[in-house]
């Protein structure tokens, strides 16, 4: 089971990295979302994997999973929504302003080429 989770995290990360390296804003945002999943699952898994032991206290039950990473990840999920929304808004503003959704800034590249001369 641990191997499954580990590979899932790895594949999410790989997918995230690949999309982050794309040239347009939309795939980059999706890539960041994938990375968010990977990070959240990794954080959650730092409480180690437990099946059928929710951290809801019941009389007589002794084993519970680690609730702390869950609490941390819960807020992380909500915050990451906020961050995604901000990034999307910025991307949208940039696109609407310049009719261009490239991630790279050609102006800087041109300046660099000028300097290299």
């Amino acid at each position, binding site marked *: 089971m641990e191997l499954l989770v580990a590979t899932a995290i*790895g*594949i999410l990360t790989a997918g*995230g990295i690949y999309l982050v390296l*794309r040239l347009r804003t939309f795939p980059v945002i999706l890539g960041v979302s994938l990375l968010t999943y990977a990070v959240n*699952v990794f954080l959650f*898994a730092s409480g*180690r994997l437990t099946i059928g032991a929710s951290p809801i*206290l019941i009389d007589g039950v002794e084993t519970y999973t680690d609730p*702390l990473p869950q609490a941390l990840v819960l807020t992380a999920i909500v915050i990451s929504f906020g961050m995604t929304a901000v990034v999307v808004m910025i991307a949208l503003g940039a696109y609407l302003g310049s009719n261009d959704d490239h991630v790279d800034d050609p102006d800087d590249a041109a300046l660099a080429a000028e*300097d290299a001369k």
Partner: protein
Amino acid sequence: MRGELSSDSKHLAPTNGKFVSLFIIVALPFLGALLPGLMNPAGRQACGGVTFMVSLTAFIGLMTNAPAVFAGEVVQVGFNWIPSLGLNFTLMLDPLGFFFAGLILGVGLLIIAYARHYLARSDNMGEFFTYLLLFQGAMVGIVLSDNILLLLIFWELTSLSSFLLIGYWKHLPEGRQGARMALTVTGMGGLAMIGGMLILGQIVGSYDLSVILENRELIQADPLYVPALILILLGCFTKSAQFPFHFWLPHAMAAPTPVSAYLHSATMVKAGIFLMARMWPVLSGTPEWFVIVTGAGLITMVLGAVIALFKHDLKALLAFSTVSHLGLITMLLGTGTAFGALAAMFHILNHATFKAALFMSAGIIDHEAHTRDIRRLGGLRTLMPITFVIATIGALSMAGIPFLNGFLSKEMMLEEAYHTVLFDNHWLVPALAVFGSLFSAAYCFRLIKHTFLGPVRHDYPSKPHDPPFGLWLPPAFLIVLVVGIGVAPFLVEPFVKLVASAMIGGVYEMPDVHFKIWHGLVPALYMSIAAVVGGLVVLAIYRPLLSAWDAAPRPEAKVIFEGLIEAVVAIARRIIHSMHDGAFTRYAAIMTITVIAVGYHAWSTGAVGEATRTMQPVTPIAVAGWLMLVTATAAMMFLHRNRLLSLILIGIVGLMVSVGFVFFSAPDLAMTQITVEVVTIILLLLALNFLPNRTPKESTVLRRTSDAVIALAGGLAITALSYHYLLRVAVVTPLSEFHLANSYKGGGGTNVVNVILVDFRGFDTYGEIIVLGIAALLIYALTEALLNGPVRARLLNRKPDQPRAGDMHPMMMVVLTRVLMPVVMMVGFYIYLRGHNEPGGGFIAGLIVSIGVVMQYMASGFSWASARLRYPYHGVIGAGVLIAGLTGIGSWFAGKPFMTTAFGYFRIPPFDKFELATAMAFDLGVFLAVVGAVMLSLESFSRLARRAHMPEVDEPMDIDPSRDEQPADDAAKRGA
């Protein structure tokens, strides 16, 4: 540190409230700096008045300390600020500090009164006085600091606030350039000085001035003495405009005249002098000190005097004369004798009085005649008699004419120069001193002759006349001092001697000299006479001298400075642009590779412990979920160009992650994830409405392959890390043991995750809802910016790129969402209520309710839904944060720490017993903040979608059977 201070009790005066604490004196200008800005609407009089009162209060506060200072006590107050760095907030008031603080605050008062009348109506007076008070506070801080690190902080503050003051007239390019130049030069000097001070602190082992000043031998014997000395002197020389850093001061003259008068007579440029004086006991007396300080002082004095003679701008002339006089003082400090120190202190006092008066006179002339160019002036004697008297006495004092205070200190300077031997040459210093004084006398005479004497002209830019008394009273007051000290020097003699002996700190005995006008026929008198007569001769042959000067080639400091800056900028640009070429994807790749490489290094050099956990068996359901997640992710890599499809795929990924959370005993997470998933997808869909639907193929195969390699390497690394991590126990007793044990007992809830959120880590959660609210407000602000900018027209005239549905708000959907709304609200409420004991809580309930509201927007249209919105979402966010915060504060009243939960069990017949906890109120805050933030974000996006050719319909349904007629007819009917 306190202990050490008090053990040194011979220095300590009891701070029993007999006098105003030094803290208040330093803090007053800073706190007062808020007032002028606030008083701005109340008018100029109020604005100037409040500034004056602030300075006056600080000045009086300082004066209440005078008895202690004159009694020989050193007033000290302080507390440990950052003891681990040796940074203590300790202040000390000795005669030297008292002298400078008195100058700063006293001249400050006159300048404030003067500036009130000087500034034009179009100038923002509140802003000006705010800067001025900031500067004043920083200066007072410098002279009262007992800790050199604290002193450095104030030092930098003076650089910054003087930048604001010099560049106050932002519309003038000279003002901006002058301010930048001053900041660059003094800032660089300050940087050097930080280094020097740190070395000094290291040598002594303490950053407290009172300790450092007692370790002269230790410091001068240290091999790092010379580097420390040079670095500190760099700071002093740049600040006090000593050669070769003198060039910034004349350019700073672009500032309003009150600023010039304040910064360049009594304060800013004296800061460097003050520091040299402060450090004098430990740094002076060595050959290095002597050669550097005296040498730089001499050169500056002569150079400044010569240049000043040929300047036509009154303020430029005064600026270079200031440079020259600062050189004079520096030279005196450099000689390292007690007599030199005494002369330096005396000249600081005298220079502050006559130079401030002269600057203010120049300001008056500029104010009234609308020009400061000496060539366009002349004959003002009869037109501006009061200004004439003030300026003439000031200038004669500066020239060194008897019965004025400048004569006395200049005489002492010549006396000291006569005895100073530089480079084994008995003639060098005296000759240069006379030469400098000669030119000094010459430019003073020129100032008087070319401005005031001569025939009245008829081509002044504006008809000059004496200003109202508000402008001439402050300089007149100073001129009274100039004459008073000049005629009766014995009045200030004890005070100056006290200051000088505090400055030399017991290194030497104070010589038994007296300030007198007549010392007999001493060499200094002959030198003085030679200088004055020479000055008159130079003025007589001024015209040929000027043409010779204009013809002579000479380096222009500004050009050199700008060339230097440009070279540095070019180098910086070359380095930065070769690394930052604007390709963000490249930065991302570089960062990923670096992280992987560093991780690999750690992996290959570290050791991996034995696995302590056994692998759990794999179930078929888990494999199925894993397969779906992996397939969706992999499919995204190949299909991501179709953006809508990739949204569906990422939805699958999110769903599988939620299922995974349920599977691994995290019901709360699963509920959060799935609800967030819904709003995120709606958000991305809204965004996709504006963005192109497809990503074009742009990158080369090679590029994609290399990206894939990086991605796979990253994925592999994370897999390996997670796998090893999951099979080992990192901590034997996890923190959450405590949470599990105390959740019910202390927090009153059985859902430990929720209790952690609202209780154990409530402060954390509180911060997070604030961040969420800020993010939503940011989105709102960005939307507003877009809608008010040039994008607006584009948005309004946008043509849809795909065919629109004929029925945008289908009846079925409208009806269904309305039926669902109460159900959703009830579910939300239920989830919220049970959160403390069962999976649920404010976060999840907030998301659920948001989805319910969003459904109304989607089904019935934006305008219909927002017309029924009773509370703005900003307010909802604010209410949430407030409720959560107030709940937390509530526990203070019970004498508990912030955010302690209280709970109890209640029973209202016929219902079952139920629990009420303050945590519920906190969770309500969380709930509201989440609803507000989510809705504000989504609403902002939707607002972008409104278009010009789409009429705003108030009706929820496009086709409504209950409506007989078309909306347009309906409206017409209602109108009739």
